[in-house]
């Protein structure tokens, strides 16, 4: 792997706070780390550690107060709102804890919502098979279970074959078995399509399936470890 690939995503002295005066709260206090291309990186930390804020800044939907993010040579801070939108469109996929699907579009159409954004979209039927949703492709979101809906949201994010897939607590609203199903899917996607995955979670167990684990506390990186004893999602226990 080249130096550039190792520093595919580079975060440099990133700071972010909310409020002003006495009520000001620093959420990110000068954060530094980098993520390699194709890596499965987990951002771990308790509530209020700044992990979601960090993910939002990486995703270009929030701004840092200082510092910068460099993705594959492009500095997000230098981009106008329009360019940021184009950047997200071409390079990023988003999965949230809530599935945020469009209620009156069926499974396939919800995935097509993502495919439309890409000139190089994945084959939707193939993807539906990968997601285990092919039989359900004509169902509306309210006819699906929570796990199935989250699969659809992953499908919508991955179908455009983004360079980076950002997942914000994707299993936060799911039970144990369904969570494992989703994690297996994300693992499979990572392996099959080679996307860089950054996943925010407070579930310690998930770190075991990641290539790279970054632990946050009080807006700073407390641990930045490369996981050499990676296990498959199947073997995770919590």
């Amino acid at each position, binding site marked *: 792997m080249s130096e550039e690939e190792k520093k595919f995503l580079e975060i440099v002295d990133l700071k972010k706070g909310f409020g002003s005066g006495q009520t000001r709260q620093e959420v990110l206090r000068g954060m530094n780390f980098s993520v390699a291309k194709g890596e499965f990186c987990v951002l771990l930390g308790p509530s209020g550690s700044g992990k979601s804020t960090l993910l939002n800044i990486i995703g270009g939907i929030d701004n840092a107060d200082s510092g910068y993010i460099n993705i594959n040579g492009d500095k997000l801070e230098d981009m106008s709102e329009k360019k940021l939108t184009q950047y997200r469109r071409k390079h990023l996929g988003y999965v949230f804890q*809530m599935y945020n699907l469009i209620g009156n579009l069926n499974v396939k159409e919800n995935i097509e*919502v993502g495919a439309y954004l890409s000139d190089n979209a994945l084959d939707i039927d193939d993807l539906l098979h990968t997601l285990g949703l092919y039989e359900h492709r004509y169902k509306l979101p309210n006819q699906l279970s929570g796990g199935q809906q989250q699969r659809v949201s992953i499908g919508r994010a991955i179908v455009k074959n983004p360079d980076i897939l950002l997942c914000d607590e994707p299993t936060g609203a799911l039970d144990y078995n369904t969570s494992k199903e989703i994690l297996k899917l994300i693992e499979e996607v990572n392996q099959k399509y080679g996307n860089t995955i950054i996943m925010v979670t407070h579930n310690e167990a998930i770190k075991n399936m990641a290539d790279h684990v970054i632990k946050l506390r009080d807006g700073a990186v407390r641990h930045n470890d490369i996981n050499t004893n990676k296990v498959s999602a199947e073997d995770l226990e919590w």
Partner: protein
Amino acid sequence: MKKIKNPLIRRIPKELIGDWKKYLVVFLFLVLTIGFVSGMYVANESMITSANEGVTKYKQEDGHFELKKQADATLLSAIETGEKADFKATKTTLYENFFRNEEEDYNNDGKKDGTIRVFAKTKDINLACMLQGSFPQKADEIAIDRMHADNVGIKVGDTVTVSGETYKVVGLLAYVNYSTLHEKTTDLMFDALKFDVAMVTQDGFDRLHKSIHYTYAWKYETEPADEAGEKTSSDNFMRALLTQVVVADNELEDYTPKYGNPAINFATDDMGSDKAMGGVLLDILVVIIAFIFAVTISNTIAKESSAIGTLRASGYTKGELVRHYLSMPVIVTLLAAIVGNILGYTVFKNIVVSMYYNSYSLPTYYTIWNPDAFFKTTVVPVILMLVVNLIVIVRMMQHTPLQFLRHDLKKTKNKKAMRLPGWSFFGRFRLRIMFQNVTNYLILFVGIFFIMVMLAMAVGMPDTLDYYKSNTDGMMFAKYQYVLKSYEDDDNKRITTENKDAEKFNMTSLVKKSDVLDEEISVYGIADNSNYVKIKKLSSLKKNEVYISTSFADKYGLTVGDTVSLDEKYENKSYKFKVAGFYDKSQSLALFMSIDNYGKVFDLKENEFSGFLSDSRITDIDEENIATTITIRDITKMADQLDHSMGSYMNYFQILCILLAAVMIYLLTKLIIEKNENAISMTKILGYENKEIASLYLLSTSIVVVIADLISVILGTLVMAAAWRMMLFSYSGWFTFRVTPIGYAKMFGFVLIGYLIVMVFDFQRIKKIPMDQALKNVE
């Protein structure tokens, strides 16, 4: 992979099907409005075009004048060339257009049903379009106005009695100079019921006995280029004409250039103003619908906030989402405009045409393509819909993806809950619902207000006409006003009558000039201690002091002590009168002075008078000596005609207003309920009954509707009264817009009926909200 179409497009048909009731209501509402306005535009334009083409085809006059005596060839030649004028007069060609005003008895029961103006058949000027049957060929054949015939039920083949002579109706026609049946140029309204125009052969004309009106129509040698040119040509012509007539020892009885002839212009002007009014009505309704759409979309965006946040985070641009949310109102409007226009050119055009044929005597027409109608009923509604929604959607889309994801779309942050008075829990709950839906309620109020303006017209017009008709007796100071051609007959003997009711009076018409119109004012000279016009101290007033009718005072805002300046119609002479008081027993615009003062002001010879006032019919004066008789019919004919041509439509209009109110309230209350579906569902889970929930959510809206209804009744009436004043100000005559207490109750009740219909649907909607709605997290 092939680039796929934006999948969001697929939401549109699904949304349409999913919420078909709402879209169907909006669609039908727009289709009907657009269709009717389109039909109005197409019908107007087609009919105006054929009317304009008729000007040449049927040799319409450029104007006409009436002389007291028949003019000889020398006078006619002088008038045509203007040779005796001391300036360059307008050259014209003159045509005889003599007529007699006879009594029409169309049901042959021996009683007079109205006045029929009979012309002899001519090929030179003011020809008629034969709509049914044929032109008269024999002395006992007559062709009458088609509209009058329709209105009173005369058919080809029937017989009518004209001043005792029987004629067979062989044709129904439309004279090119009588597109509306205005008997006099000063008539505020035409009278298709009691006034008729007819054509007979010369022999048929000679069978009649009433005095001949020596009317000459003229055509300009050089066609004036525009309206200003027409006015200049007419002014020059009239100046010269007055000189010629005086030199020839004749008298000018009437002078009417084409532009001042309501019988020629009223229909086309009215169609033009109908078009303008229809256009404004359409714009207002489209804007209301656009706001309803905007509020709906605004709610949808708030509801779909997380999905929008995700889409924006995934790279969807603001523009793509704006276009997506904008497409629904634009598509619905465009479809409605297309269907509306198709109906406009087919169904509605015919309705409008039949409405116009019911009021106007127009020649046959053919439908023409109307780009104006397309612009006004397709392009403008779509643009209005687009602009209103664009503003709202763009404003909504200014939020960041993160704000969408967090449902943080409120403008004011950290808003504290408003403290409410210590009412019951239900009372406070309702108040919260009202505050939550302030925008919806504001739109509801604006909508109800506009509907109320229309209702004020639909209810107020019949009320006004009823009041006017039922009070006419009190407004007529004498049942008959006989205006003589002269106070002496052909043998220079003073005209007298044995009738005991008869009382001499003087009368003339002066003109009150204003920027809007030159209006005729009747000036009366009344005998001392008159039995008819009872004004105390009238005889003790100074020479230029007068009483004026309350209508006159009301129209021109005159008060006691004001000075009124009036001008002679055909002479350059002005008079100034000081208002000494008001007389309320006259509906017309009139001014009263003593008969002595009248003589002094107008330099009359001793004992010269204009005619007789009488409560009974005078039978001992030769018809030849009577210029005109003003009866109660002259006062009520405008109200009768308005009632006939618009009265029945007002009932339909009232129903339309109820439906409009129902549609608008339905759309807005639907939004309010949808917005609160989760809360309603949750209250059901907590154990509230449907009735209790309805009392929370429906009663809040009911309170707002009742308050908006009450306020709008007052505001709507005020606006309509102001519009009525503005409208009547440009017409001659005056009567005040009135709404009776029952009328107010009707206006209030009609909107309430609309609401009650909707409430039934809303209650059903509340009943149908499932309990698991609140537990779902799917958007």
